Structure formats: C-alpha cells, structure tokens
C-alpha cells in the first residue's frame, strides 16, 4: 500500500487515510483569462510517466493538504512537503536526482520567491 508521510503531523499515513488531489503547482486561471488558459488550467495535465508532483489530503488524520513527489512509473515516493511551498524543495529535487541523476527540474528550486517558478511548471 502507498504510504506518504504527512509533513504537518509527521504520521506515515497509509493510502486509505489519504485523499488524492491531482497534479500540484497548477497556476489558477479564472475571470479575465483566455479560453485556452482556462481550459488548460481545468483539463490539460502533464500526466508524466515518471516524476509527478501531486496534492494529497490527510483526510482521516489532521485533515491538511500537502504535496508529494512520486514516480508514476515505479511508485517510488521521493518525499512530501507542505502545501504552502510554491514549488518542490531542494531536498525533493536532490531525492529525485539521487534516483535519476539525469533528471533536471524545469523550475528554479533554489529561488526563495514563488514568482521565479517558470511557466513550464505552472501551466
């Protein structure tokens, strides 16, 4: 069974006490955006075979939303981090690169501000 450690309460939570919430780090588009942007925000997903950043909720625990970096091809979990994190942390990137040395993030994991997340990740 998939086990994710909740970054808030520190519990290694089993899949049955978690609620999956889909792809993480989506940039919201709403009123004023173009039809194409709104469509992409609602429906176009990366759905990668490999490293996937996603949202989970510790539904039968502390109830908080958090993020997980997981591999959809191997089911390996690279780590979890808090939902307020604008993009994956350097620790997560290091964990991924430990397994996949050639993997390069398409965002700047060392930047302190959320605005430096490039379009590639936030679409």
């Amino acid at each position, binding site marked *: *069974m*998939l086990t994710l450690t909740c970054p808030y309460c520190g519990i290694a939570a089993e*899949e*049955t006490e978690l*609620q*999956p919430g*889909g*792809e993480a780090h989506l940039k919201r588009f709403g009123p004023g955006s173009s*039809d*194409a942007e709104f*469509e*992409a925000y*609602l*429906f*176009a*997903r*990366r*759905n*990668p*075979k490999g490293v*996937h950043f*996603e949202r989970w909720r510790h539904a039968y625990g502390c109830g908080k939303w958090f993020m997980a970096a*997981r591999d*959809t*091809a*191997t*089911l390996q979990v690279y780590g979890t981090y808090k939902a307020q994190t604008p993009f994956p942390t350097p620790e997560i990137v290091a964990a991924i690169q430990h397994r996949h040395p050639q993997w390069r993030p398409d965002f700047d994991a060392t930047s302190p501000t959320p605005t430096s997340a490039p379009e590639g990740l936030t679409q």
Partner: protein
Amino acid sequence: MPAAPASSSTGRYSVFAIAREALRLHSGWKRAWASPEPRRKYQVVIVGAGGHGLATAYYLGRNFGITDVAVIEKGWLGGGNTGRNTTIIRSNYLQDPSAAIYDKALKLYENLSQDLNYNIMFSPRGLLMLAQTEHEVRGYKRTAHANHLQGVATEWISPRRIKDMLPIINIDGPRYPVLGGLYQERAGTARHDAVAWGYARACSAMGMHIIQNCEVTGIETQGGKVAAVNTGKGRIECDKLALIAAGHSSVLADMAGFRLPIESLALQALVSEPIKPCCNLVIMANTVHGYLSQSDKGEMVIGGGTDGFNNYTQRGSWHHVEETVRALIETFPMLSRLKMLRQWGGIVDMTGDRSPILSATPVGNIFVNCGWGTGGFKAIPGSGWAMAELVAQGRPGPLAADFGLDRFAQGRFIDESVAAGVAH
C-alpha cells in the same frame, strides 16, 4: 458484408479446414499474422496494436481501401488493456453520442466472428446493472427512458425478476438491497484476446504491417505536420499518424508537443477459481464498485474501481481488491467461499467527462483515439470504424463528431461520469 480477405499465408478458417488439418495431423496451420520488418515509409502509421488500433487499421482497409498501413506496438499485440479488461460489451449509455458509438460497436460485435472469419466467442448473455440506492433507481430509470429514445433496447426490471434470473443474488441485504435493475438483453461478453487476434489476422491478410516490440521514442514534425516517428526499429515516415495507445496517450502527445485532458490511472480486476455454471448474466453493481461475470472456464471475473492517483505500473492497490470483494459479498454471499486465483491491472486513460476523445490534434495529420477510460473493450469495433473515417477523411464522421478535443474548451461535455458511475 464481405468476409475478411483470405490470403495464402493465413488460409480461411472453416469446418473443411479443420477436417483437412485433422487428416494431416494439424501440420498445415499457418501463423495468423506476419511479423515483417518495418518499411521506410507508410501512408498511415498507427501507434498501438491493441483492439482500437487494429480495428482502426482494419476499417481503414475495408471501408476506405487504405492498406499502406503499419500498426506499431511497444509490447506484444493485445497485451495492454485489450488483454486486461473484464470483456463486458454493452451500449446502455445515457448520452446520445455515447449510445450511438457504443451501439455501433455492439452491432459490429454481433457479426464480427463472421466478418473476420475468426471466432471472437461473442456471447450476448444479457447484462444487468443493479440499482442499490434510490439515487441509482432514478438514474437507471432515466437511462432506460433515454435508451428507448435512442432505439437501444433496455428495460427496467424488478428485484423479484432479478432473483428469478439470478438465483445466487441476495436481493435484501441490509446495507445494499437490490431495488431493481437496468437490463440489456443484447449485451454480453466476448473473448478479448481473440478480438485483437482476429483484427490482426485480417489486417495482415490485407498486406498491412503489424510490428511488435517496437516502442515509439520520438515524433518528428515539420511545418506543423507530422513527418515521421522514431522507434526502437528505426525511423518510419508517414503521411498520417494515429495515436491509439490508451494509458500512454499523454506520453505520446508530449512527444508531439501537445497535452491531452487525460490522466492515467490503474484499474484492476481479478478472477476466482473455476466453479460450475452459476451466473449466466453480466452483473454490474456500481454503488459497490464491482462487476461480475462467469467466464466459459467457470472463473468468476470481477472488476473493481480505479485507484485515485496517477500510475503507469499496471498494478493495482491491494485495498481496492478488498473493497471490491467485501462489497460484492453482501450481494453475492456465495463468493465468500471462493479462492481468488489471479489479480492484474491495466492503465486506463481518464478524461474529465469519462467520454473518449476521437479527434484531430494541434499537430497536422496527427489524430488521437484515447480516453476510453474504464470502458474501452466494448467500443472496439465502433471506435475503429469512427477512427478510420477520421483518419481517412481528415475530419470526423457522424460517430466521432461529438468526441473532439475542442469539447473541453467549449464546455460541451458528454458527461457519462454521473450516468455510468466509476466503473463501466
């Protein structure tokens, strides 16, 4: 309808062929399809030799005379979802575009063994969708009315009649009583592998190339149009490219430079040890996320729900097996005495409205057929028929017209997610 062309390499299957081969100790049977090396160029390249890809190739040849076709496959023929489903065939959908394409498929299935000269063991044994909550009662009555208007024969039947048809069912369980059911008499099952094999044999007989163990590693475009695919067996040029790869559609779309409104999830199924015939219907119980039929070998074939997270591993979660079986046992108490033999998973391509995509794409001459989600097997002939129209003519015919990618931008959904439940 013309029979599948028989070539000297395959021979035509008949009672006379069986008698002739019996006399010479079955030494004369030929391979059902050829395994050629790829040529440098084809008019149409289809990625994915599952049921949908092979059916598309078959109807391209049969309905449009296009036989310069290669069907390339990463693994082995029919080894993806075509060989991993619970073989259910039905057409009792709520929305008109769905009913049209699934009923076309059902009608083609009815004559497919004759059409392909290959026994796909189509068994129209009848299908019953159980209503176990008041919400489902209203939903299925609505579907029955919709089916009546669509010309798809279904009926709403009472718990008493369900018990008469299916003695092993417990209609008055405490948590999920059976309140009635939506019954489609023409629905049933077929041998899933045989569907892929039959289409493959017919395609090969038309001179098409089926190339297995040939993974696509890249898609080359030139001036906004497809030029070639790079594969494990070299570069293959093509005029038109059809991506029909179910759970891996997003990966292929990424190679071509666009995204699809699809997420890949694992869906799993399991079979019990074989037992004597006890269930001559296909049963779907959407409230408890389980469906059930008995195979010709006697195994109870049980399908469950999808996992909630993206997954490409063709495995399922153990707790979903437990959940599915636990819920089914109340309605079918005899299942509690059975041992389960095998469990497996497939990667299904889920769209937001739980309806498929048959569409042109942002890249010229690339077409996609995907998003069949948990219910693709039943659609194979209709999907192939509609996709062949789309690929041959460059624009969708009447069956595919409503299933374009543009429906997501336009909010023109074909919403089967509430009609069919999670599993279909």
